[in-house]
């Protein structure tokens, strides 16, 4: 493998007496789509702002394109595209004005930016909105414009912090499609998310973060294989009875998690397990067999769900 584009060792960030990031290590290779998965407050955004060469770190080393972002901020940022969690577009300016001004911040020639804008408008599916003020756009359009803005300088690495948080399902799917296209074009993506479906869709490799630390690292499928069973049977008996039947059920499967509203039973064959439960004369009010997901990995690693 060639030298990684991003290399992080023992990265720590302390705010007062709160440790937001607690000694994490990871590498990101060229062309890879790398994810930081974890609940709100896991330290993902703090890590991203350090990778974006804007925020300082308390200790540890970070190298982006062979440079320390704290010492060579402008030089490192010249190679990055940043899509922050909150869209910080200039609402008073139009779509094209936003792209144009941003391109100028990279010192790009007017001619280059004008050509690039056409390409980006098409990519972000915003051709018809080109002269519309940004404040009049929908949430999904603003997100796509923020991503387009991050691409104006043809960055080597695109950093996306919670790219689809706050979007409706349709807008999310459009966005995933766009990001997938970037991935195909070979753009190195680093993204944070607390949506396990997003991580599964977009990431080649990811780290699971909780309370500032990395709990596990691997591909989505690899992590699921390592930390969960093939299938999950979700059963509900009603909130009071869940607890009563839990001890008996836990004997029937490899592992079980008791959530407030349901029981998750980990097994290689969900249907078979459901038959066993019926044979034991336990009748759940609802049941569902599904494949294991990153949500189950997170639950296994931390004992908590991703979205609480």
């Amino acid at each position: 493998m060639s030298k990684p584009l991003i290399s992080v060792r023992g990265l720590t960030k302390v705010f007062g007496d709160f440790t937001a990031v607690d000694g994490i290590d990871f590498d990101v290779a060229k062309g890879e789509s790398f994810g930081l998965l974890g609940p709100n407050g896991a330290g993902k955004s703090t890590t991203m702002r350090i990778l974006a060469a804007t925020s300082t770190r308390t200790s540890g080393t970070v190298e982006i394109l062979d440079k320390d972002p704290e010492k060579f901020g402008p030089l490192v940022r010249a190679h990055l595209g940043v899509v922050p969690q909150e869209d910080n577009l200039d609402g008073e300016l139009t779509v094209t004005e936003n792209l144009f001004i941003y391109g100028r911040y990279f010192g790009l020639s007017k001619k280059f930016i004008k050509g690039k804008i056409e390409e980006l408008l098409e990519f972000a599916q915003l051709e018809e909105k080109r002269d519309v003020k940004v404040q009049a756009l929908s949430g999904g359009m603003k997100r796509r414009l923020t991503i387009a803005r991050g691409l104006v300088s043809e960055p080597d690495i695109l950093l996306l912090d919670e790219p689809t948080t706050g979007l409706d399902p349709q807008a999310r799917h459009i966005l995933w499609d766009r990001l997938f296209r970037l991935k195909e074009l070979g753009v190195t993506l680093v993204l944070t998310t607390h949506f396990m479906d997003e991580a599964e869709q977009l990431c080649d490799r990811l780290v699971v973060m909780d309370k500032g630390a990395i709990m596990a690292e691997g591909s989505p499928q690899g992590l699921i294989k390592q930390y969960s069973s093939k299938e999950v049977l979700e059963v509900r008996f009603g909130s009071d009875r869940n607890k009563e039947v839990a001890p008996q059920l836990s004997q029937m499967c490899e592992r079980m998690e008791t959530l407030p509203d349901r029981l998750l039973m980990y097994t290689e064959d969900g249907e078979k397990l459901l038959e066993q439960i019926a044979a034991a004369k336990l009748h759940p009010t609802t049941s569902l067999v599904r494949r294991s997901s990153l949500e189950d990995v997170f639950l296994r690693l931390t004992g908590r769900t991703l979205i609480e």
Partner: protein
Amino acid sequence: MNAGIDVPQIQRFGSLYIASARLKSMSKWKAIIAAVDIGNPLFYLIAVGIGIGVLVEKGSGTSGTNGIKFIAFIAPALLANTAITGVMDETVFPTIEGFKWRKLFFAQNATPITGRQIALGVYLAAICRAIFSVSVYYLLLLAFNVVDVGISLLLIPIAVLGGSAFGAIILYFAAKIEKDDQFFNILGRLVIMPMFLFSGTFFPLASMPIYLQPIGWVSPLWHTTELGREAAFDYGISGLMVVVHLIYLFTLVAVGVVLSRRQFERRLAK
């Protein structure tokens, strides 16, 4: 990467890129800015020049104002105050907006542009606004026959210097405060208003009780007004005082710019 990013050029001109983006944003408000910058002086010149001025001169002639018509006496102060409020509008709002409301500074800082360049860019754009506002005011003073074109043209750079001095300091505070709820009220009512009233604006500072005069001494408005009066109608202040006024104003500019640039950089790096 083949987009043609030129980092050394950004390091040289980054603040100008920010300033031009700020001017672009201001241009979206050009109708309002023009209305304020023309309307405000008009109201003042009519109310004070024709109304209060006549009253003052009826009472004591021009003896209280060193033999100068009342409206001409206060004109340099009005110009300076215009520069101050213009710079303030274009530093305080964009700064709080940039850090907090819409976080535009964080977007700018995600490029090779630095926090220091953002601070300077916002400041330079605010000075451009002051130049515009003061020039409009000056033209109205000519139209109302308050000043004669000539040496009084110096009033423009002097007023802009005063606005820049105040603006540099206010830029620092706007970047410093994290809770903005009361900032505008305090700034408007407890800083701008007293400064406007007690800086020798409507009467020579020396005619106030000595214990109130320090308000004028620290106020950039007073220093600017004194310089303006000297330039416009040979007010009779000593050469030494001219130097003192200039040093005071330039010191505020230097201190404010240094502090602001550092504060922008720190806050963005958190």
